[in-house]
């Protein structure tokens, strides 16, 4: 997949993923990537299984959540000078076979962020109604602001250039998970975003839209996050 001169890092944030993370790591190792698993302080053998499958493992001493674990991977990629990053989930939801499609536009210099979408190209699966509604609402708002339609703003399957990895190492990156607010920020920074179809499977994890409080918090958080992404002063790229 990558050119010999290009260094690619696959970042896999993982929490309680013993039983699935090994297969994902093996599949990515087979594709010629360096693989980094950020174990978000799992109580099970996630770290050991990932190591045995051939990944480098960063084990966090406390649980930071999805965003904090991902950002640790970006910090590692930036420190070690990787040319591009592909990130995917450890639960097997994201088919590793789609990684070349996600990385190709980044490696070809056509985009800095490539979002793997489950909603284009027929590679997806049925999404719960409430979740789909949330995605449509905030995806629609982001589309209005950025004047660009993105079908799957919450996707965790992404390809990133070294430039974006540096941006994601700053406090601009959200603590919980990147969403439509990041699309607004990326647009304001002139960063090129592209969507490609990927194969995804249903996740066994609890949705962030389940229950009563979570959807309300999501509604509040995303409204605020998009507002902040619109009005926040952006740092100059390359500034410490």
């Amino acid at each position, binding site marked *: 997949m990558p050119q010999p001169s290009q260094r690619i890092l696959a970042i896999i944030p993982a929490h309680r993923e013993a039983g699935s993370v090994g297969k994902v790591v093996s599949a990515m190792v087979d594709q010629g990537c360096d693989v980094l698993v950020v174990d978000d302080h799992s109580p099970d053998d996630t770290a050991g299984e990932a190591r045995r499958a051939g990944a480098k*493992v960063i084990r966090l001493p406390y649980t930071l959540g999805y965003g904090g674990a991902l950002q640790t991977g970006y910090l*590692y990629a930036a420190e070690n000078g990787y040319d591009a990053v592909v990130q995917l989930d450890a639960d097997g939801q994201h088919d590793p076979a789609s990684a070349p499609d996600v990385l190709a536009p980044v490696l070809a210099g056509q985009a800095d962020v490539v979002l793997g979408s489950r909603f284009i190209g027929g590679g997806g699966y049925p999404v719960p109604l409430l979740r789909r509604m949330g995605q449509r609402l905030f995806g629609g708002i982001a589309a209005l602001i950025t004047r660009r339609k993105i079908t799957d703003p919450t996707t965790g399957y992404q390809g990133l250039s070294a430039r974006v990895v540096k941006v994601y190492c700053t406090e601009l990156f959200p603590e919980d998970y990147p969403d439509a607010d990041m699309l607004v920020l990326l647009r304001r920074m002139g960063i090129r975003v592209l969507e490609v179809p990927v194969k995804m499977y249903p996740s066994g994890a609890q949705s962030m839209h389940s229950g009563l409080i979570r959807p309300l918090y999501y509604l509040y958080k995303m409204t605020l996050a998009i507002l902040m992404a619109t009005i926040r002063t952006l740092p100059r790229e390359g500034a410490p």
Partner: protein
Amino acid sequence: MTVRQIIVISLVAVGFILLVLELIRRHKMRERYSMLWFFIAVAALSVPLLYTGYAWVARKLGFVEVNNLFFFLAVISLFLMSLQFSIALSSNYARFKSLVQQIGLLETRVRELESRRPPEDQSKGA
């Protein structure tokens, strides 16, 4: 204001100032978070001394009873303290997150460096 009220308010305020000082002495409270507590204690201490002045301010602000002004000020103070704590918590979380990430990165780097050491060096370090 009765003499009994003056004595009670003064004792509570002085006791509160001593409590804050003791907490700082024992390193249970940092100086930066003590300022608002001191301000409240001094304000409470000033009530018996400046009661007439407070009554005048209450009338000018439209409060029927001077006690209502005190309740209002107390609520505002609590609100400001909560705000200060939220800011401090957010700032501390950002530092905590950065520390956790750096520990994870450094631990991985140490493991990599140790695995590269020749076996004789590893036995010396053990």
